[in-house]
């Protein structure tokens, strides 16, 4: 079973976001870049399926050269090879643009399943997976907590997290799956894994290599345009509820919720 995993590199979730002076981007100087957390679940699931069914796991990243570090991490976890699309013309791509680039990489590959994280924890669009599935004409199952591939490798049954419960959905393969936290517990790369990863193939491709028209992607092709990035509204620290004893504090809080905020 050959599996492709689409990988994004994002700022670590502990990052304090600072807005750049242009008001349209964020300051990236001191950011610690990591593999998108949801993509870690995708990589792990791909490796588990490979261990069961055999085949190859290919990691596909889109972005600048630093993304190779995150691809190497996935290779160190056990993936077989990596592909990075790095081209200055990619800057400013929207989700559909990124999906077009991934589709161009994937059209020449042999695969049974594509795994993506359910969303990037940076711009939080969560659109690339389903847009890619559409461009490739394969079914999608998004926000997956549990995945079972049939013994003959022809279909997949997945548990999706929906409001108030779990939806169990089935699709034939090839299909695209997006991973939710809880799908698995990603492994750490072992030292021998890290050594081996250095020798695994990692191809870097440009838009020309892929035959993608640069005007279709990047800022020029984007249908979504950022006008402004602003900080969240400052919340002012409110009042500390007074009281000599826990009971008194609780009573005062209950009164505030009832009389002041009228919430109860």
């Amino acid at each position, binding site marked *: 079973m050959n599996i492709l995993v689409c990988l994004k590199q994002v*700022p670590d*979730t*502990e*990052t304090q*976001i600072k807005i750049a002076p242009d008001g349209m981007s*964020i300051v990236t100087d001191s950011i610690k870049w990591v593999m998108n*957390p949801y993509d870690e679940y995708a990589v792990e699931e791909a490796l588990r399926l490979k261990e069961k069914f055999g085949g190859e796991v290919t990691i596909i990243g889109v972005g600048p050269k630093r993304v190779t570090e995150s691809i190497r991490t996935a290779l160190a976890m056990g993936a077989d090879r990596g592909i990075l699309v790095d081209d200055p013309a990619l800057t400013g791509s929207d*989700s*559909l643009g990124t*999906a077009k680039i991934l589709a161009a990489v994937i059209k020449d590959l042999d695969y049974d399943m594509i795994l993506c994280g359910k969303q990037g*924890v940076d*711009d*939080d*669009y*969560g*659109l690339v997976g*389903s847009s890619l599935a559409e461009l490739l004409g394969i*079914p*999608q199952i*998004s*926000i997956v*907590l549990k995945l079972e591939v049939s013994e003959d490798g022809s279909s997949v049954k997945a*548990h999706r997290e*929906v*409001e*108030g*419960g*779990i*939806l*169990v*959905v*089935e*699709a*034939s393969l090839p*299909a695209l799956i997006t991973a*939710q*936290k*809880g799908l698995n517990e990603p492994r750490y790369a072992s030292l021998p894994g890290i050594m081996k990863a250095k020798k695994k193939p990692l191809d870097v491709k440009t838009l020309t290599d892929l035959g993608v028209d640069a005007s279709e992607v990047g800022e020029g092709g984007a*249908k*979504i*345009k*950022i*006008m*402004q*990035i602003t900080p*969240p509204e400052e*919340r002012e*620290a409110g*009042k*500390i*509820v007074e009281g000599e004893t826990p009971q008194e504090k*609780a*009573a005062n*809080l*209950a*009164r*505030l*919720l009832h009389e002041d*905020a009228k*919430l109860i």
Partner: protein
Amino acid sequence: MAQGIWIVAEHREGELRKISFELVSEGRRLADKMGQPVSAILLGSNIKEKASMLGKYGADKVIVADDSRLATYTTDAYVSVIAQLAQVNEPAIILLGASVQGKDLSGRLAARLGAGMAQDCVAFSLDNSNLVAKRPIYAGKAYATVTFKDSSPQIATARPNVFELNEPDESRSVEVIDAEFSLDDSQLKTNVIEFIQEAGGKVDLTEAERIVSGGRGMKGPENYNILEALADLIDATVGASRSAVDAGWRPHSDQVGQTGKVVSPNLYIACGISGAIQHLAGMSTSKYIVAINKDPDAPIFQKADYGVVGDLFDIVPALTEEIKKIL
């Protein structure tokens, strides 16, 4: 020329969900500014009788696609029907809910229509008749205001619990239109096998009006019963911080924050949560935040409307008793 605002109504087992009315309400406000009509798109099986409710919240028309294969949401069937209707009728704007269903639909629909898509928006405005959308990024550590370029239609999803509901107007009538569409079974590649309802049938965190959340200060999974007692009393949903989830005390679906759920209830009560940046990002749009924590320097107090410095094991049960007296 593309005209009008569409909202895609959402239901489960034939019951319209609250987000549908939030979408109609916001669609109505935008349409009034544009001087254009609002149409609700309703896909389902034997669902036509629900159309009038959408009218009361402000829809001018309800376009009903009725087919047994649309009774339950599937990506393939819903994308196919909505895309066909959009290609024929050419709405200027399509709004969907940023619910699990809307988020599953939106990327595929946008790719099929070759349109721009703004996910999980918390405010909309208009620049001439172009949609301008404000949406959180980095789980709310910042907000991006985005607009559309050469995109017809302009598609966006609206975060549940954020947009104000219109007062339903019982006297409003609505035009109900039977949609024409075709569905080819060979296009339907996913099957829904079953829906497993969560025990207790609680409102999902993303839709909850009230949340009682516990963090590392809970000390163990066995202590969440004190939060559950409070939550039951005030009809709240119980949430958790990442450290509580990573410790295995609570399921992943309960996690609030950057790699969990981003929530915006009326009332968020944080118990034993210090307020890591990724947690604050996920709940700081709550209308009222209450923090109960032993550490007076915990960052959560900087965001809280009401802070209680004290041991949650004393405060929370006492609070439950005090609220019982009020109710």
